[in-house]
């Protein structure tokens, strides 16, 4: 099982196991647009998200009935007065019956349903079986995501950015942090959102249910580039995940070829103050860790695909792609840029 190669292409594997997902797709088609579904609460890919999606379909169904009843009562009531015989009000007792049943009993039943379902689903989705299989620290930055894998003792395994790989079927614990403003971590296909608040550590637990690439996005206004603060969650089979993590833990490979070696020098001069490439002298902490940049699917926090052209454009003029972001543009000489790209492309 492999993830779809591009997160922006059509997902191609719309599993119909879930009635919810089917309805969602139907709804989207009805509305005249084919949703990609890689960032949708209506396309749940974990037990938690599936429960919440089910809750939504119940809510929608019940609400549709309530709305229909109210409009019907209103319409019938209005029509009854239109006749030639003049006003025909309900008798007093019938009126009270209407108010008590519609205004008290029905809402009370609905409240009971909401509270009970909310408590039950809240308990299911909030369940935290100890110990978790995987612990990942995700820190909200301006405006990207730092991802740190921790072992059971809390030791650091690997650091990456904007792309979180997780094993399918395993319980994941995310530790959500921020050292700047409040962000909110949200991958609609996998779970509800949880805020990242400076000064506290929030936890989010879930188990990805199906391999795939899902997009997440910051859900709390966090400044100029709130809109383009995205990330990917790549859920893979556990073995594949372990291999990926082991690779991420390794330092960067020695560049091969003169061009790439030249590129490393350019990197040291221009980029190392803000970026880290493990295994080299580049230890900057301002921007994302680039040790395995070439293995990532996207750039600029899931904003543009990770291709040579986009990478070059991003380095030369990041402000035109994400105005206001903290990376300055670098007007490198074409040979330098060429060398730098060659180097970065080798950071598998």
């Amino acid at each position, binding site marked *: 099982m492999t993830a779809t190669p591009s997160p922006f292409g059509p997902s191609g594997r719309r599993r119909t196991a879930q009635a919810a997902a089917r309805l969602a797709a139907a709804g989207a088609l009805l509305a005249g647009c084919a949703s*990609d579904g890689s960032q949708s609460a209506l396309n749940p890919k974990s037990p938690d998200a599936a429960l919440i999606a089910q809750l939504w379909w119940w809510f929608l169904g019940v609400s549709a009935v309530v709305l229909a009843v109210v409009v019907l009562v209103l319409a019938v009531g209005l029509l009854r007065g239109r006749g030639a015989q003049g*006003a025909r009000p309900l008798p007093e007792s019938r009126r009270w019956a209407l108010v008590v049943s519609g205004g008290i009993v029905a809402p009370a039943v609905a409240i009971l349903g909401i509270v009970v379902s909310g408590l039950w689903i*809240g308990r299911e989705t909030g369940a935290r079986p100890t110990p978790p299989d995987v612990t990942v620290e995700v820190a909200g930055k301006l405006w990207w995501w730092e991802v740190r894998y921790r072992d059971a003792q809390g030791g650091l395994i690997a650091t990456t950015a904007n792309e979180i790989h997780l094993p399918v079927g395993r319980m994941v614990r995310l530790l959500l942090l921020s050292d700047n*403003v409040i962000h909110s971590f949200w991958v609609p296909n996998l779970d509800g*959102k949880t805020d990242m608040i400076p000064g506290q550590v929030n936890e989010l637990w879930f188990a990805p249910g199906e391999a795939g690439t899902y997009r997440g996005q910051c859900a709390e206004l966090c400044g100029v580039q709130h809109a383009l603060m995205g990330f990917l969650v790549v859920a893979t089979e556990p073995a594949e995940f372990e291999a990926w993590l082991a690779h991420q833990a390794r330092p960067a490979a020695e560049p091969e070829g003169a061009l790439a070696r030249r590129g490393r020098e350019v990197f040291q001069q221009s980029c190392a103050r803000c970026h880290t490439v493990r295994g080299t002298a580049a230890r900057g902490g301002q921007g994302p860790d680039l040790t395995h940049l070439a293995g990532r699917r996207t750039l600029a926090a899931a904003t543009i695909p990770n291709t040579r052209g986009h990478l070059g454009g991003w380095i030369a003029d990041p402000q035109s792609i994400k105005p206001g972001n903290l990376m300055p543009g670098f007007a490198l000489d074409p040979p330098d840029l060429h060398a730098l790209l060659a180097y970065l492309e080798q950071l598998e």
Partner: protein
Amino acid sequence: MTLTDRTFDPGAPAVRDDPEETRRLEETWRSPSGPVGWFMPVNQRIIGRRFIVTAFVFFLLAGALGLLIRLQLAVPENSLLGPELYNQIVTTHGTTMMFLFAIPVVEGFAIFMAPMMIGSRDMAFPRLNAFGYYVYLIGGVAFFGSLFVGLAPAAGWFNYVPLANKEFSPGLGVGIWTTMITFIEVSALTAAVELIVTILKLRAPGMSLNRMPLFVWSVLVMAFMILFAMPTIIVASLLLILDRLVDTKFFIVEAGGEPLLWQHLFWFFGHPEVYIILVPALGVISSVITTFTGRPIFGYTALVVSLVATGFISFGLWVHHMFATGLPQLGLSFFMAASAMIAIPNGVQVFCWLASLWGAKIRLATPMLWVLGFFVIFVIGGLTGVMVASIPFDLQVHGTFFLVAHFHYVLIGGAVFPLIGGLYYWYPKMTGRLMSERLGKWSFWLAFLGFNLTFFPMHQLGMEGMPRRIYTYIDGLGWEGMNLLATAGSVVLALGFLLTAFNFWVSMRRGRPAGDDPWGAPTLEWRTSSPPAPYNHRHVAVVHGRYPLWQEREAGRREVVIGLRSDRREMVVTSILDAEPQSVQVLPGPTIWPFVSAVAASTGFIGILVSPIFFVIGFFLAFFSFVGWLWPRRPWRED
């Protein structure tokens, strides 16, 4: 049918209006004219009308910003507005709609209508009223003006810290927000105090609490809510001002400050705020339904209890804005239950109105049409509101376009639609004329259609993962169609509202003269002439039931209070519960002092953005202006 005015005593002779006395009464209550005179009136109707007109101007301005937002989001990766400008526009749109439109407009309706409805000639503290208006006007213009010079705040209308801290929002923007909002809320507080005292103490003799029109009840509930909610936002924004101005560090994490403290304080105000806006609109609905069905509303007591219950419950559910902040589950569960509970009083109200409408002979005039539109939209907004009370569900839709859809359904459907209905309904009392029914109906259908086209698709956008407050979105997430639809709808919606604005303006000159009571309404405001004379009621009425005008028409006579002097501004003070006459209050006349005080206070509030020294300057200026304001009136002028 001619009615005879009589005094308290049924055996007393009919009261004859002496034209000389009427002229003197008019002289006493008249407001000065001329350029300086514009700053002097204290009469409640003039102040109320200014509130309403100013608020609707802000509504149109903020609505234009809403259109810009929709245009920017029409297509993915649009570059019409940059991110910084977009964030400023979103913040200004939200803040203006909430603080410069919604609250002032309901206050305006309350100040304009409530005193006439309770048979009073003015409000308890007329100069305070005027002061409140100038504060609102100056604060509002200063706030909105910041957008035109590129200094508007960009941290969202709820200004979460640390984003709103000096470190992350270094410009003047958030400073303008905090100082101007604090300032404007002073105006809300003055209106609240004013309305509470007026409603409790200045009702016409005989209008006991259980005979009060439902609109007045809703205003009373609203005023009490303002009284308890506004101090919290004033405190919160003061703390933020201090953090930004003198580094107090209430919200600075590194110094032990707490970002969640801001959220608690803000939402302790922010949630009741929604009901502060909604409750008076519910009162308008009760008034309109009573008049256009031509019979008493069903479940008066149930409606009053529901209003009061809504007021109480609304203070117990602020945490449902904070479900995603990581607070413990047990505490959150309480707020989940409380949030869902608000469905009961609202359900009772909706079904009382449905019971009143059932089988009634309804005149489908424009005000009624807007109220019928309310039913559909508000019920949808209420249903999604109950949904988001559920914690697990809220964690998916919180901070998304689903929420944007939800609160626009509640606020536009629940408050703006009925208020526009109220505008059509009470327009004769503002201008003496009726607004065009034809334009009104066109306006309604355009707005109704446009509204649903704009906001209904947003529910789906939210479910499909679109967060709110994003200036753009990448192509290929499946949000394109719905966004385009919403943008198209917003143009229709804007046309609908503009048509009402046009109607308002054109009907001032060309509208059909209304006469005193064009709709056959039951409440006292329709006993005044259209537009009312400066003293509102030529004679203060004596009330015997909930529907005085209908009862008087049936009885063929009406009872009035006599003995009030016509050479000074006198009003009858009555007891709180039963409205038994207690004494006579003499009100002050036109004066420039409230305006001077407002200018003095705003010197401090606006100047503080530049330098803290203006706090001192503003303090002394305001002090001297208050001395002038409170200077004892000379007794020999009184008698």
